[in-house]
C-alpha cells in the first residue's frame, strides 16, 4: 500500500521537478539567444537570486513581494473555492436532471470562450473593485474548465454499475453518490490541479484591471518604473508558488486515488 502511494507520488513529482530545472535552463538560454534584451531588462536566474536573497536590500525586496503575494493568494483561494464548488454543484445538477444539462451545457461551453479581459470591465462595474470583483473573475477562470472536466468524469460512470443500482431500487441520487461520484474523482482532481494555475492567472488579472493591489498590480507597475528585478522576481515567485500548489493538489490526488488501486485515474 505504502509502496503504491510512494510510487504514484514519485511518478507525479519527478517530472515536475525536472521541468522546474528545465525552466531555469530555458530562461538562461532564452536571454542568451536574444542578447538585445540586455542586462537591465532581461534578468538572469542569478540576478534574481541576488535580488531576493543575497543583495543588501534583499530582505525589503522580498518582503514587498511576499506582502503582494499574500494578497494574490487570498484572492486566488477565494476564487478557486467559489469556482470549484460552483462547478461541482452545477455538474451534480446537470447529471441529476439531464434536461437542465441539455439546455445549459452549450451555454457554458459558449461562455467559456468569452475572453476574460473583455468581460472584466463589466465584472468590475457589477461587483466592485474589491475582493468580490477579483474573486468573481478568478472563479470564472476556474469554473468553466472545471465544469466541463467534471461532467466528462461523471458521464464516464460504468453503465453496468449504474444499472445495478437501479435494479436494486436505487434512486438517481443513490446512483450519483455510489457510482458516478467515485468514478468522477479522477476528473475532479484533474480539474482542481489544472485550475490552480488558472486561479492565480485570474487573480493576477483581476488585480491588474480591478483592485490595483497584490502582485497583479505591482507586476505591471514595475515596468514603467524600470524595476525589472522586481518584475522578474515577481514572475519567479508566482511561478514557483503555482507549481508548488499544483504539486500539493497532485499529491493529495494521488493519496486519495491510491485507495482505488495502483492505476486508478490513469488512462
Amino acid at each position, binding site marked *: 500500500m505504502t509502496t503504491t502511494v510512494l510510487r504514484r507520488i514519485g511518478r507525479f513529482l519527478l*517530472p515536475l521537478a*525536472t521541468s522546474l530545472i528545465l525552466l531555469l535552463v530555458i530562461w538562461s538560454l532564452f536571454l542568451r*539567444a536574444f542578447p538585445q534584451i540586455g542586462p*537591465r531588462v532581461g534578468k538572469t536566474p542569478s540576478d534574481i537570486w541576488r535580488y531576493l536573497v543575497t543583495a543588501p536590500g534583499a530582505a525589503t525586496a522580498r518582503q514587498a513581494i511576499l506582502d503582494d503575494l499574500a494578497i494574490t493568494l487570498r484572492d486566488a483561494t477565494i476564487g478557486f473555492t467559489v469556482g470549484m464548488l460552483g462547478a461541482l454543484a452545477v455538474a451534480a445538477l446537470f447529471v441529476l436532471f439531464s434536461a437542465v444539462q441539455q439546455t445549459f451545457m452549450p451555454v457554458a461551453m459558449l461562455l467559456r470562450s468569452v475572453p476574460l479581459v473583455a468581460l472584466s470591465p463589466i465584472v468590475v462595474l457589477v461587483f466592485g473593485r474589491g475582493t468580490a470583483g477579483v474573486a468573481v473573475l478568478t472563479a470564472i477562470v476556474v469554473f468553466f474548465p472545471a465544469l466541463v472536466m467534471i461532467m466528462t468524469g461523471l458521464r464516464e460512470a460504468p453503465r453496468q454499475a449504474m444499472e445495478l443500482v437501479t435494479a436494486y431500487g436505487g434512486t438517481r441520487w443513490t446512483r450519483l453518490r455510489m457510482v458516478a461520484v467515485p468514478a468522477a474523482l479522477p476528473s475532479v482532481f484533474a480539474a482542481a490541479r489544472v485550475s490552480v494555475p488558472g486561479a492565480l492567472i485570474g487573480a493576477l488579472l483581476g488585480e491588474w484591471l*480591478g483592485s490595483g493591489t497584490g502582485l497583479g*498590480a505591482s507586476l505591471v*507597475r514595475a*515596468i514603467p*518604473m524600470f524595476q525589472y528585478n522586481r518584475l522578474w522576481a515577481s514572475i519567479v515567485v508566482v511561478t514557483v508558488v503555482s507549481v508548488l500548489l499544483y504539486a500539493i493538489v497532485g499529491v493529495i490526488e494521488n493519496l486519495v486515488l491510491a485507495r482505488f488501486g495502483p492505476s486508478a485515474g490513469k488512462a
Partner: protein
Amino acid sequence: MNSIDRRSFLRYSALTGAALGGAGLLAACGGSSGSSSNGSTDDGSKYGKVAVQLSWLKNIEFAGEYFADSKGYFKDAGFGAVDLIAGGAASTSVEAGLDTGKVWIGLSAPQTTAPAILEGLPAKIVGATYQKNPFAIVSSAGKPITSPADMKGRKIGVQDTNQLIFSALLAANGIKPGEVTVVPAQFDPTPLANGEVDGWVSYVTNEPITLAAKGFANSHFLFADFGLPLVAETLTVTQNTIDSERDKLKAFLIAEIKGWKDAVADPAESARLAVEVYGKDQKLELGEQTKEAIAQNDLVVSASTKTDGLLSMTDALIEQNIAALRTAKIDIKAEQLFDLSILREVYAENPGLK
C-alpha cells in the same frame, strides 16, 4: 522499493535532453539575428529608418512629429522612414525600448527616465517638448479636488505608466500612499464620469477638454502648482546615440523643431493630422482636438523658448527639474539626466530655426 521504474526515468531524461537540445538550437539561431534596430540604410537614405516611441496614444500631443513626417522634414533630414509607435496605458516604456534596441528615440518624462538611468541605463534627455508639467488631477465640478490634500480618503484613477508621477505628487506634498485609494485606470476616463472614482490623472490638455465636451463639468489642479515643475514629452536617446550618432541626432532634432514650429503655428492642422491621418483608428473628435492643440501651445511655448528656441531647456529649468525629482525621492544629478548640448549646437549652427 524501486518507486520509479527505470523505463519511465529514462523517458523523462530523454525528454529533458530533447528540450535542452531544442533550447540550444534556439540559442544558435538567435545569435545571427541579434542586430540592433538603430536604423538601416536599405532604403538608400542617409540615416535609414528609425523607430520613435511615443508616450501616449496618437493624439495632438505628437502634432510636431506628425508635421515633421507629413511635410517631409524627416525625409529632408536624411531619414528614409520614421516609425511613430503609439504608447498607451500599460505599454512598454521608452527606456526599455531604448535599452532593448526596439526604438531609437522616445518621448518620455524626467520622472520615468531618471529611475532607469539610476538602474544603469546609459541614456539622456536631449530636449523637452513640454516646458511645463501637463499632469493634472481632474475631478467632477460637483465634488472638486483642488489640491493634493483634497485627495485624502478619495479614489483616484491612475494609469499604470503614471503611477510614478502620482507617487511623486504624493511624496512632494507629504501625503502617505495609504491615505489615497489608487484605482487602476486605462486611457478611457469613463470611471470618473460614472462616479466610480473621484479623481483622474490626466493631461490638462486632454481629459478636461474631452470630458467637458461630453457634458461632464469638471475641475482640476496642476501637478506643476504643487511641487512638481517638471518638463514633459522629453526626447530621450541612449548615450551611444549621443556619442556616435551625433549628426543623425542633430538631423532628427532639426526636423522635430521644424515640425513643432508648424504645429504651434497651426493648431487646426495639428488636430486634422491627429484626427484624419495618424490617430484615425481612434475616432478622435476634431473640435476637441483643436481645443487641445490650442491649450497645448501654452505648454510648448514659454518665455524662454521664444529666445532659445522650441524643445530647449535653460539651466534654471534643468535645476528646477532636479529639485522637483528630489522632492519625489529620485536623487539624480543634472549631468546624469540631461544633455542639452546637442540641441544648443543645432541652434548655433541653424540660427534660422529659432
